[in-house]
Structures are given as structure tokens and as C-alpha cells.
């Protein structure tokens, strides 16, 4: 858990403006993106902007990495692949991450976002992030 860095992440101008919230129950973290007009990409459908959904998934991936272990720095995205499964409607979006592997330098993360039903995801993200585990956690790990 890197509580201070989670606060840094959530207080970053872009993230704060975006309006993302984190709902943490024990070791389970859910990201919440409350609907706002400025998230709409195409007002004629209307659907949320693909970039807004992608950015939200990236933020939840970073927050989940920070919640899972002490890190010295904010995770940096190396690459992400986002699949858009359904149009994201003008409603709140939720997302949860699975840390497929969290190593000494790189983490492999999958995130799924949904709106009405958790079994009807609107988008998924699969990405690699550069991480810096806090030193005390890694001193007895093999080099």
C-alpha cells in the first residue's frame, strides 16, 4: 500500500479534474468515474469518449498497483491495449483491476470497466507498467 502516492495520483491536476473516485474495501479496489458532461465524446449517440474511458482504465490500473504494494514512484505506463466492447453510455463507469504479474520492475495489469452489469463490460485494458517497489520490500528478494 502506497497511501501517499495514491493521494499524489488522485490529486494530480488531470486526475482531480477528471473526477475519478476510489472505493476501497479491504484489498479490493473499485474505481468510479461519475458521469459528467465533459466526458462525452459523441453527444449524438450519446457515448463517453473512448479516450476518457481509456484514461479511466489507466488511472485504475495505477491506483491498483499502488494499493497492492509499497512503491517509491507513480507507475508509468509502458504500453496499453484497450478493447471497446460496448458503447459507454451517459452514466457512471466502474472498473476493477487484476494484477496478472507484479515483478521488480514491470507489472502486467488487466482492467475491466462496466456500467449497469458487471458481466457486461464496456471496455477492457491490458497493459504493462514500469514500477519501482519500495526498497525495504525488495532487499531480501533475489537479484
Amino acid at each position, binding site marked *: 500500500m502506497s497511501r501517499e502516492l495514491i493521494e499524489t495520483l488522485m490529486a*494530480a491536476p488531470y486526475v482531480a479534474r477528471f473526477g475519478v473516485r476510489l472505493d476501497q474495501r479491504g484489498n479490493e479496489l473499485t474505481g468510479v468515474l461519475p458521469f459528467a458532461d465533459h466526458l462525452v465524446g*459523441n453527444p449524438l449517440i450519446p457515448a463517453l469518449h*473512448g479516450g476518457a474511458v481509456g*484514461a479511466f482504465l*489507466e488511472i485504475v490500473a495505477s491506483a491498483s498497483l499502488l494499493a497492492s504494494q509499497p512503491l517509491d514512484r507513480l507507475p508509468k505506463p509502458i504500453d496499453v491495449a484497450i478493447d471497446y466492447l460496448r458503447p459507454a453510455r451517459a452514466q457512471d463507469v466502474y472498473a476493477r483491476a487484476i494484477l496478472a504479474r507484479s515483478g521488480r520492475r514491470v507489472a502486467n495489469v488487466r482492467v475491466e470497466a462496466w456500467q449497469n452489469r458487471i458481466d457486461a463490460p464496456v471496455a477492457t485494458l491490458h497493459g504493462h507498467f514500469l514500477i519501482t517497489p519500495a526498497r525495504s520490500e525488495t532487499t531480501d528478494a533475489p537479484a
Partner: protein
Amino acid sequence: MTDDIQSRLDSIAPLIVTGSPHAVALGLSLVSLTPGEAVMQARYDDSLVGDPDAGTLHGGVITALLDHACGMAAFAGFGARDTPATLDLRIDYLRPAKPGLDVTAQARSLKSHGLVAFVRATAHDGDPDDPVAIAQAAFMITKASKAAQERARRAYTEGRMS
């Protein structure tokens, strides 16, 4: 034929940027749009910073910029008729964009045939040969996007977006 598409692009394209609340909120602007290529820009702004210590733009800004630019290139590739929906978007973040610099995305539609368009894009902060990110995306024409395009056309002829 090409001129025909170009004139349609010139008239409709700006609306797909200024008519998109999220693109407006991020300050994205359209630089140019031709049948093969879309160029868009995100202006550096303190409110878009993702790492306050480094002063770098949040990856999400680059994501939205690339998604929008790729969508515009797909739209142009489809002949400027139907607004496409993103199927997938893959981004490699080669390096952080330098603080204070605007980021430009150049997206090229490699193939648009039937319902699907394949687009490749790069984002750079001044030197196109030293990109900050590269992206590959696929777009699809959906029923929703056809209906939306029809509403856009009507709104455009009536001189309003709602």
C-alpha cells in the same frame, strides 16, 4: 471524387472536434484532415498534468488525443459519411512528453473497407522523428454511429448541434 470527400471533410470535420465535449474539455484541436490523414493537437496545460513532480502530461491525455485523431482518420477513410466507433486501441508510450510542449498526433488510415478501418498514429512533442507514443487502432461502423451520423447531418443542415 477526392475533392468531393475533401469538401465534405472541410465542412463536417470541425464539428466532430468542437461537437465533442471531452475533446473540448481537453483543448484538442484539429490541425488538418484529408482523406488519408488526420492531424490533431493537444495544447500543454497545467490542468492536464499527471505527474505533478515531473510536470508531464497524463497518459490519458495522449490516449484521448490518439483515439480522437485515429477516429478522425477512420472517418475520413470511410469517405466522411459514418462516424466510426473504436474497436481497439493499442498504445506504446515511448517516453513522457516534455513539460510545456504541445503534443501533435498524426493518424493515417491504412485500410478502410466495408465496416472496419485500420489506423496507425504517432504522437510527438515537436519532432515527428522522436515520437512520445505510437498507436494502432481498429474502428467499426455501427448502427449507433450511422444513426448518430444522420442526426449530425440534420443538426448541421439546421445549423445547430444538440
